[in-house]
């Protein structure tokens, strides 16, 4: 198609007479080789014989007269021999057939054998089929139990998960009672300021706490320069409660 378009465009521009490229024919080629059947042998009968064949005259080779005479009686004897040999062969084959050694007897025997083998094969096939059915049934049952177990496990897991989540949620709901919101912000702040939590204490085995410094609601005096675990006593005023702690510890 592209070729045709090009040719057309060329012709239109140049003004020359239209030259078409040979298009491929769409109908099947008419050569005899592409048919599926092999062609008939020899020449078709409609064609006349070739010139070589038309005037062909067969000239038999010259033979010596003694050869010709010899051949005469030889041919007769030979032909008689051939005729009798045909009878002999026929009798031989008929005898073979009668004795059961012929082809038809062989065919019958083979057919019997084949039938027997087919019956055996059918039996074998049926046995195998039954076996296969039983095996498949067992496998199916097994698979079914496995699946059911899996499902049970998953359901139990989900149930447990649900329980845990419900407890969590309930806990959170309870906790949310104490949450700080915009409404109770002032109250909570006041509460926090009123109850400061200080972890700066030491504890003995009885559970008695000794905070140092003592926690104060409001800061009195100058706050300490140092805060933290490694508290240096030299940087602050001496403790007022020192004798009391000594008495309690003793």
């Amino acid at each position: 198609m592209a070729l045709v378009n090009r040719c057309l465009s060329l012709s239109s521009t140049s003004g020359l007479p239209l030259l078409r490229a040979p298009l491929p024919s769409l109908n099947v080629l008419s050569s005899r080789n592409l048919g599926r059947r092999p062609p008939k042998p020899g020449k078709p009968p409609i064609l006349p014989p070739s010139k070589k064949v038309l005037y062909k005259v067969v000239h038999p080779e010259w033979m010596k007269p003694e050869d010709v005479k010899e051949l005469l009686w030889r041919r007769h004897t030979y032909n008689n021999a051939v005729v009798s040999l045909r009878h002999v062969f026929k009798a031989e084959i008929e005898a073979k057939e009668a004795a059961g050694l012929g082809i038809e007897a062989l065919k019958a025997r083979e057919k019997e054998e084949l039938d027997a083998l087919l019956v055996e094969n059918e039996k074998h096939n049926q046995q195998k089929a039954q076996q296969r059915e039983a095996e498949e049934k067992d496998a199916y049952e097994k698979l079914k139990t496995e699946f059911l177990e899996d499902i049970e496990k998953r359901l139990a897991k989900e149930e447990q998960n649900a329980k845990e989540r419900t407890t969590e949620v309930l806990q959170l709901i309870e906790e949310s009672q104490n949450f700080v919101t915009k409404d109770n912000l002032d109250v909570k702040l006041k509460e926090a300021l009123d109850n400061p939590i200080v972890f700066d204490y030491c504890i003995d085995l009885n559970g008695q706490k000794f905070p140092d410094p003592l926690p104060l609601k409001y800061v009195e005096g100058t706050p300490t320069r140092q805060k933290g675990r490694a508290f240096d006593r030299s940087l602050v005023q001496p403790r007022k409660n020192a004798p009391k702690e000594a008495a309690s510890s003793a």
Partner: protein
Amino acid sequence: MRQLVNPKTFGKPSIGLALMGCTNRPFYHICVFPDRSLGRRHEGNIVEQLGTFDPLPNVRNEKLVSMNIGRLKYWIGVREAHISVPVLELLGLSGLFPVHPKTYIRARDARQSLAEQVAALKTIGNEGEAEKDSETTS
């Protein structure tokens, strides 16, 4: 319903040589062809192959022939096939049939031509010796 006949095997079959092989290398199969009236003989028309014949002699100067004697007897005896002359000659040489008259003639001619060749060679040899003798004497 009338008996339907297989056109390939109906009629009087003929046993002949079918030329196979390629250029400069002929090879014959001894085949059974159907009746001539059903079409001329060609490779697609063969009913059964009964043997082979290699016309070119091998390394040991033998022309090898093979024949299925059992099937030959069937086709010749029961089906009364026409046999071509080359196949008859081969059968005669094999021993199943008597020797073909043509074989006798050909053999005799071959013997005669061989004798003539030998005689010719001998005469040439004798002439050569006579010349040598004359040279030595002179």
